[in-house]
């Protein structure tokens, strides 16, 4: 193995000739696989299975109607339609390949012209199919809360939290989302940062448009900043981090039973008896005897230990309402995560790729190099001021994360299918060792 990080291609060739083994990691421009229309076989297999099921269901429905079966058939009909179209396109491609081998030069020419278009068409159909097969995130249609918590490391992280907060605010403005500030708590320490940053200890932004959760879900994680802080006297670059949580928010007036927080089945449901609300209690006299100006409220969900405190407004009822909203969102997201973790256990037998959790750094903002890197999609962009203004460059980054998330979702789905298939086989063939 060579210690050198990079060896030019001709040197590598000569080295290989001389018998030295070099594991060359050649980067390829395209990562599309060779399988049909970029579709992994498992996904295709699943689609075929679903198609078979659909056929059976329609046959069954012809003889006697059953609501449950009809619903299922309706659900998978989209997949079946997509698959049929794909098959048709594939047949067309095969035909073109056949024509390419023909003796007629004119025909060959025509086939060649068509080939590219058909291939492209096939590819879009493939993505379509995988999109229909990918499960939709259950909270995708909801508004969301974006919570910013500066990481450990003092004022610098708090300053940057303020910048991120403004970045999301402006991004929402540019994209036409309605955002409102649910909580904005300045830290006790008031040293001003770069460009008038104020150190904050916590901030919550609510984006009230439906579907905001899907748009912002990729933003959750640790955001790292590398720059020379305003407080730094010797010009050293510091690295600090800000945690961003994206939580689904309960829409204010919703008729959807699943998202009704009074419905015990819902993720948002909290048993009020499990919540301890701290304020003035039986200690001493109340009522007319006292008049407290403190309107702060602190809610503790006893089973999970999640604590929410809110003291923004002078009105206690407003504080209470906000606190409950935040608590509901946090608990719903926790419940969702727990469920995801269960699904992950199943997947992990196949897929070793680390699931994104809150702990991993997801993005770096480097001021000196004027660069913003997303570590998941691998996108590297410059023009940092535009990113921090919530401009089109930030949009580009967020979109890249979106497509990465979709890809991950599909991959996870496939892994799950495989795991299920293996479980169905009864675990006859053991897992291969040291695969990845």
């Amino acid at each position, binding site marked *: 193995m060579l210690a050198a990080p990079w060896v030019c291609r001709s040197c590598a060739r000569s080295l290989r000739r001389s018998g030295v083994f070099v594991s060359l990691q050649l980067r390829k421009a395209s990562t599309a696989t060779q399988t049909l229309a970029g579709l992994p076989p498992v996904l295709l297999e699943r689609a075929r299975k679903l198609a078979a099921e659909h056929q059976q269901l329609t046959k069954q429905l012809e003889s006697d109607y059953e609501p449950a079966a009809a619903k299922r058939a309706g659900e998978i009909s989209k997949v079946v339609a997509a698959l049929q179209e794909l098959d048709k396109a594939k047949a067309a491609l095969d035909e073109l390949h056949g024509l390419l081998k023909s003796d007629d030069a004119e025909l060959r020419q025509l086939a060649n012209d068509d080939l590219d278009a058909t291939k492209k068409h096939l590819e879009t159909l493939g993505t379509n199919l995988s999109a229909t097969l990918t499960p939709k995130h259950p909270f995708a249609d909801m508004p969301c809360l974006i919570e910013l918590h500066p990481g450990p490391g003092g004022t610098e992280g708090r300053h940057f939290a303020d910048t991120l907060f403004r970045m999301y605010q402006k991004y929402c403005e540019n994209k036409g989302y309605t955002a409102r500030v649910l909580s904005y708590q300045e830290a006790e320490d008031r040293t001003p940062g770069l460009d008038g940053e104020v150190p904050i200890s916590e901030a919550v932004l609510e984006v009230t448009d439906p579907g905001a959760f899907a748009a912002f879900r990729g933003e959750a994680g640790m955001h790292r900043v590398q720059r020379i802080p305003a407080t730094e006297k010797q010009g050293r670059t510091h690295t600090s981090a800000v945690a961003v949580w994206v939580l689904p928010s309960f829409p204010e007036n919703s008729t959807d039973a699943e998202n009704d927080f009074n419905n015990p089945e819902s993720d948002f449901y909290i048993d009020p008896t499990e919540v301890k609300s701290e304020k003035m209690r039986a200690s001493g006299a109340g009522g007319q005897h006292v008049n407290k100006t403190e309107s702060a409220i602190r809610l503790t969900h006893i089973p999970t230990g999640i604590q929410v405190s809110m003291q923004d407004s002078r009105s206690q009822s407003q504080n209470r*309402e906000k606190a409950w909203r935040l608590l509901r969102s946090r608990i719903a997201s926790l419940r969702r995560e727990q469920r995801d973790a269960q699904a992950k256990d199943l997947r992990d037998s196949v897929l070793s790729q680390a699931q994104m959790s809150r702990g991993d750094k997801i993005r770096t903002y480097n001021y000196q190099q004027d660069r913003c890197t997303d570590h998941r999609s691998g996108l590297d962009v410059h023009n940092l001021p535009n990113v921090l203004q919530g401009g089109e460059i930030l949009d580009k980054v967020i979109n890249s994360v979106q497509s990465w998330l979709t890809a991950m979702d599909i991959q996870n789905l496939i892994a799950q299918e495989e795991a299920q298939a293996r479980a169905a086989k009864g675990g006859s063939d053991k897992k291969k060792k040291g695969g990845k």
Partner: protein
Amino acid sequence: MARIKPQLFWQGRKKLGLNAAKLLPVCRTLESTANELRWIKQHVSETPSIIPFGARVWKLCDRRGKGLPLAYVLGNQPFGDLEIKCQSGVLIPRVLYHPPLQHPSPLSYFLAIKPRPPTPTTPKHNRPLHRNRLRPAPPLLPTLPHSPFQSLNVVGVDISQKAINLSRQNLQHNLRLHRFPPPSNLHKTKSDSGPQRSINFLKADIFSPSALDPILSIPLLSSSSSSSSSSSTSSTYDTGYTGDEWDILTSNPPYISPSGFLVSTSRSVRNWEPKLALVPPVERVDLHQKHFYDHYYPDNENLLPPSKKGKGVVEYEEEDVFYARLLEIARTYRPRRVLMEVGDMEQAKRVVGMVLGDTRLRGLYFGDGDGKEKGAVQIWRDDLVGFEGYEEVLEVGKEKIVVKGHPEGHGRSVYLRRVGVVDA
């Protein structure tokens, strides 16, 4: 009170500025100082003035630093959905008052203040709701939120002209802010559609026998024509009152004893808030005590346990005098529901004792204790919200009384529901 460490002043000054040093003696902690300073600044920036920002903040901090309650300094206090104006000389509304309004959706739980739903059997549907707040009370009268109160006539009674004036200002203020649906008696246009409501304020001393006559003479806007025998002003106890029925009688009377005022109230309450609204005047106590004994405890010996003063002497404290009068009014006018704020659990028990001790009130609100024709005599604690299922049973005398709300809350109000009235 613990001494504030000097270093806290230094920290406050460094982190929050010079104003913090003013507020710190009142707020005690840095956190609450930061909050109050933020609210003051917010208030100043929201109200335009020619005086510079810094000077105004400084002045308000100075006044707050002298111990004046923040509500007086800023001139308002948020209360539920409403913004209540406050001024020196009128009691500040407490958030703990009115457990109904703490609920995020007052409609779902508090039925108690819902007008009776229209019933097809009686032609007298859509009956107006009288809501009376009696005697020195914070200017909270129009604090009822929207929907369940679409069709009620509200009469607010207070002895203090200041409070009455402020109540009117508050009504106008909240109408301007569109936080309160406008009553029909303020509309000059005769919109016949939509619910009919009226809000009136009245300066009166509820202890004077003729105090309530003006209430009866206030014309009702509702079209309940069937209540023809309206104001017969036959306000004696013995002949039953035959005028319009009141849906609810509610009051936050002064309930602190003179000794308790010196001991158990907090400093800002003692120094700045009107004593008239907190402590019943002593001359009333003397005047009413005899009357009280005569009326409420003719056969009470077997009901209340003998106190240490001797057998048959009922427990009665001088701060309870308003409840005696309120119950007297309830006896006469027989409101469907009565909701009275009380100081603590002991006082609540005494008030319940008064109700149970009077045969007429007992018949009206307690009934025979079970069966279909059941009224309600209940004690509500501070926290009703989210604790709907929580109920305790407390023995007062021989009877079992339901106590609702968070098990650790103070006894905060006494609720009576007339026999035969059903909470929707």
